[in-house]
Each structure stands twice: as C-alpha cells, then as structure tokens.
C-alpha cells in the first residue's frame, strides 16, 4: 500500500501523538484541561491546537499549499509566540511529526526503498512548514512590539494634538 494511504488511515492516532507531543511542553497539571478538545470556547488552547494539527497533518500529506496551512499554523503559533518559549522551543513541535510519521509507517514498510524515499520527501515538506512557522512566529513577535509602541502613541495623541505637535490632516 502507498505510504500516504497508510498514514491517512492512521490519521487519528498520528494526530493524537502529535497533540501529546505539543502538550508535553506544558506543565503536567495543565495537560488534563487542555485535552478536552471539544470545548471550543472554554478550552480554546486544546481546541485550536487539535484542530490546527489535524489541518497541518492533512496539508503535509497533500504536499502543503501555503494558503491552506496559514490558518492552521496560526491557531498554534500565535499563542505559543506569547507564551514563555524561545523561538526554537515554540516551534520544535513541528519536527516531532517526523518521528511520529516514521513510527506510524511502522516495521512493515521499513527497508522498502520507495517508502524511505517518500518519508524523505515528507521530511522536506515538514521542513518547509517549519520555515513558514518561523516567519509567522517572527510576525507575531513584531506585532507584540508594535502594539507596545502603538499604545504609548495612542495614549498621548490628544495631548500632542493639543500642544499642536501633530498637524491636522487636511483634505
């Protein structure tokens, strides 16, 4: 059977493992609540992570189209970008997928040169995904700095206007 087909059949299990891998970067007492992945609004972290990973998994198998992954990636990366992780910690979950896919491909296929090639191709897709994720992470960080600066500006706008330090925009 085609490797992708095998992986597709094991989707649930693979995404479970991937989800657990990302949860392992949180305190063990926080993981229980995060596992209630149906609770879209009261457990937005678990819900978004789970949904995001499912979407990313499908995208990886499809060879990944940038506009399909952005939303799914965003659901995970945007939050982790403001949590107490370094960039590498924040994004390491993506590489976990390589190991998980290898484990899922299983002994039945190991040694088969075609499967090995296919796995290497998927590794390449995952690497690309990581690069996208890195861009997005940087974008989020820049947004945070921009917001910090902008709030300071907003706060003084009327006062500067009053001191006539800001020219009125004329049509």
């Amino acid at each position: 059977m085609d490797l992708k087909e095998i992986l597709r059949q094991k989707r649930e299990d693979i995404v479970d493992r991937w989800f657990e891998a990302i949860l392992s970067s949180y305190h063990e007492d926080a993981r229980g609540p995060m596992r209630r992945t149906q609770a879209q609004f009261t457990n937005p972290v678990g819900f978004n992570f789970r949904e995001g990973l499912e979407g990313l998994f499908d995208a990886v198998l499809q060879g990944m189209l940038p506009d399909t992954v952005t939303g799914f990636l965003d659901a995970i990366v945007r939050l982790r970008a403001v949590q107490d992780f370094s960039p590498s910690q924040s994004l390491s979950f993506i590489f976990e997928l390589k190991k998980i896919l290898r484990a899922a491909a299983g002994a039945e296929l190991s040694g088969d040169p075609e499967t090995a090639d296919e796995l290497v191709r998927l590794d390449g897709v995952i690497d690309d995904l990581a690069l996208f994720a890195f861009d997005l992470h940087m974008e989020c960080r820049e947004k945070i700095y921009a917001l910090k600066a902008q709030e300071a500006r907003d706060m003084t706008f009327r006062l500067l206007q009053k001191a006539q330090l800001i020219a009125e925009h004329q049509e």
Partner: protein
Amino acid sequence: MSKLPKPAELAKVSYQLPKTGWMDTPVEFKPGMFCHGSKPKSLELVGFPNPREWRPADADWKLPENWKEIIIEGIADRLKKYRSFRLFMDICVRCGACADKCHFFIGTGDPRNMPVLRAELIRSVYRKEFTTAGKILGKMAGGRELTLDVLKEWWYYFYQCTECRRCSVFCPYGIDQAEITIIGRELLNLLGLNIEWIAGPVSNCYMKGNHLGLEPHTIVGNLEYMLDDIETVTGKRIKPTFNRKGAEILFVTPSGDLFADPGTYTAMGYLMLFEELGLDYTWSTYASEGGNFGFFTSNEMGKRLNSKIYAEAKRLGVKWILGGECGHMWRVLSQYMDTWNGPADFLEVPKSPITGTVFENAKSMKMVHVAEFTADLIKNNKLKLDPSRNDHLKVTWHDSCNVARGMGMLEEPRYVLKSVVNNFVEMPEDTIREKTFCCGSGTGLNASENMELRMKGGFPRANAVKYVHEHHGVNMLGNVCAIDRASLKALMEYWVPGVGVCGLHELVANAMIMTGEKERTTDLRGEPLPSVAAKEEKA
C-alpha cells in the same frame, strides 16, 4: 557533533517545573509577564510605606528588615476585619471546579494561575502561621514558611489576576478569588510592592482628581476637541458646563475616555446625548475620575480616592450623580461608595428629569449608570433613533466582568444596543453574561510592558470574538468599560484583526437624530455612513 541540546529537549527541560512541586519551586520572572515596579514618588505622595527605587526582577527588593512581621500582622488584622477572608482561608475543599476557569490559566498553562492554587499561595502561609495543625505539622498540613521567594511568588501571581471573579461562579462554596487577590495586593502594598501602572494613577488621582493627572484646562481643552469633531459631524456646537453650581446632575466618568481613541467617541456620545435631552448637568474637573485604581491597592486608598465624588456633589449642590460607562468604577461605586463615604443624604433619590423614572435601585448611593439611564429613555420613547446609520457595523457584545458578573447589569446595555444597531450577534454562551471572559487587562494590568500576559489572558475572549467574526462577519466589539476600550483594541489587533472596539454611547450617538442637525454623512469616527457609501459606489 555539537553538544547543543536539541530544541525538543530544550522545550522539555525548561518549560516543565521541577519535580519539587509548586510550593518549593521559586517563581521565575519572565519578561512580558509583569509590570514595572512602583516609583518612590508615587508612593510618597499618598504616604504608602517603603518608597524606594526597585525593580521586580532584581534579587534585592529593598524591604524593611521586619517585613515578615509586617505581613503576618497584616494577615492577622485582615482575618479579624474581613469575615469573607477568614472563610475563604478555611473552606476550600480542593474540588478543582475552579481550576480551568481562569483566563490566565487557560492562556498560560501555568498551574499557579489556577484560582485554587492562587489562593493556596496565601492559604499555605495562613495554615503555617494561624492554624494549630499547620503550626505543628507544617508542610504535611499544607502549611509553608513565608520566605522572600514566597513573597515574590505572591507579587508575580497577584498581579496576574484581574479580580474578574469568573472562578467564583463555578465554585460550589462561592469562594471569591478576587477577594483573596484584593487582600494579597493590600498585604504587598504594606511593603511598597506595587506596580507603577497602578501607583502612578493613584498618586495622580490623589493630587489632580484623575488617573492621568489632567489639569482642569487640559480636561476642558480635550473636550473642546471633541466638540469640534461633533460640530463637523452634526453641524451643532455644544457648550457643556464645568464645575457649575446648582446643576441638577453631576456627571462622572473615567478619565481614560477623555484622551484616547476609541474612548473619546464614547465621550462624544455622552456630550451629544445630554445636549439633545437638554439635561441640566455639569462636568467636574475635580471629581474628574470615575475609575478608582486605589481599589487595586487597598481598601483605605480606594476610599480616599472615592471621597471626592460625594464631596464634589455636595459642593456643587447637585441632586444626584450620573456615571459614565465603566467597569470597575461601577463596582466600586455600587458596592463600596455608600459604606465608605456615605450616607449621601444631602442628595436626592435619582429621578430622570426626562421620563420621571425614579431609580429605586440607587436609593441609597444616589448614582445611576448611564446604560440604565439611556435604557430608560429608549423604553419611554424619548430618543429619535435611526439604527441604520450603524448598518456598516456588525456588533457583538463583551460583558465587562465588573458590571456584568459583578453587578448583574446584563440586559440594560443589550436593550440599548439592540435599539441603536440592526446587526447584533451574541458570542457563544459559555463566554458571555455571568460567564464572560475577562479582557485580560483589568485591575490595573493594562500596561504595555506586560503585553504578552495581556494577550494570553485575553485569548479566551478573543477566541470567542474570532468565532463570530469568521462565522457572522462581526466587525465591532461593544462594551461599557473604559479599560476594555483601551485594552481590547490591542487584543483585537493581535488575535482578530478587522474587529474594532467601541463604547455603547458611541453607537447611541451615531443613531440618535438630533434636533436641528445637518444631514450626517459620517459617523463619529469620520467614516462615511452606509447610505453615503452606497451612493458613492453607485456614482
């Protein structure tokens, strides 16, 4: 091969707390998670203890030698004074119902942000010092010594709680973590351990009457700008009065709405509404702050800052007081003002001069929230409204914790909103009304240096907004709170770009047809009205 640890290893090593358990794990101060420490000047001005330069991330907090005694005595005092505190120290059964209800826990995944553990921060010390079991058995009975590390942990986590009370809704015993945080912050203030974002506004308010330290001419000047803008939009020049003796009503609102968008549009809304009603009211440049950051430091300070409101009402000889849109302001006014600085028996029970409605609910404190006031006007058909002027907006409603969960004001703002807009969409049920999710920036945590904390804490709220944005095209988030207006803007920009933030009375003023106004072509923000935009498109 390089010896560098792999990212996956790093992630595992550094983010998991060591196995010692939370009680023995000193807190690590992470950038973006805490605010700047209070400046000596801000503390000195109001006579708070231990004014000095200090930095929260420094090892040495420059505490008085007997700091521990001060805290333990402080706890003893408060156990005597507040029955709620005593009760909350004793009755938690650790059922865990509150554990995952706090927006800060949800957003950070940090167990010490579980309400039950936040309370344990103090409770453990209480057990050790004030219960027989704790004194004898120590840790076995859940007690622990008050050390500098514990104190730092208090500071870090009591400034990661917005006193929103969401957790208390789910506690079978009604344990209110907000009350515990209030006491926790009071204790910290005994040692000068405040944040400048609170201490600064407190001293400003004490000296100048408002958090920003705006002097009378600046207040008047800022309002003048709004009056210019109102004239541009409506063709009407409004002339409000300031500090006018003998006015019927004193209007008090948070100063935040006087100087920063989008709050300014809400303030313009008040000006227009009161003008249209011909209300006999006055602004005060002295009681120029409805909010009360003193409430986030100590009961005593809250009381001191609040006293100017009744004092000014008395000086001006008004009959009653009308309050602008604010969250914590309203909790302080409704739940504390009367006890602190009342009885205000020189005032009359508020009665709307327009509808004749007597606000029985304000019989004692003599102050009415503008959302109640306007709801009554609309109910009695006193306003001419054209909600289609707000047709470019699809609005959802954020219940601000203090007014909604704290004070039960759930229907009045919705009633007003539905009368002034045609497109209103509720957010999912678990995230509104009593169960509303906090903006993540309340209780003086709306500084900029803790932006990461705010974005995490505000994530559950933003997540619900995102849902109605994506599924129903919502593009505006309404609320009746000045801190919301200031802080949700950044939250939306990070999580749900394309959704703006506004106060209720901005929408009211957009829809309200004023006597003798010119044909309006824009809303208060200068955006073309839907009808005009449609015409332009055709042309």
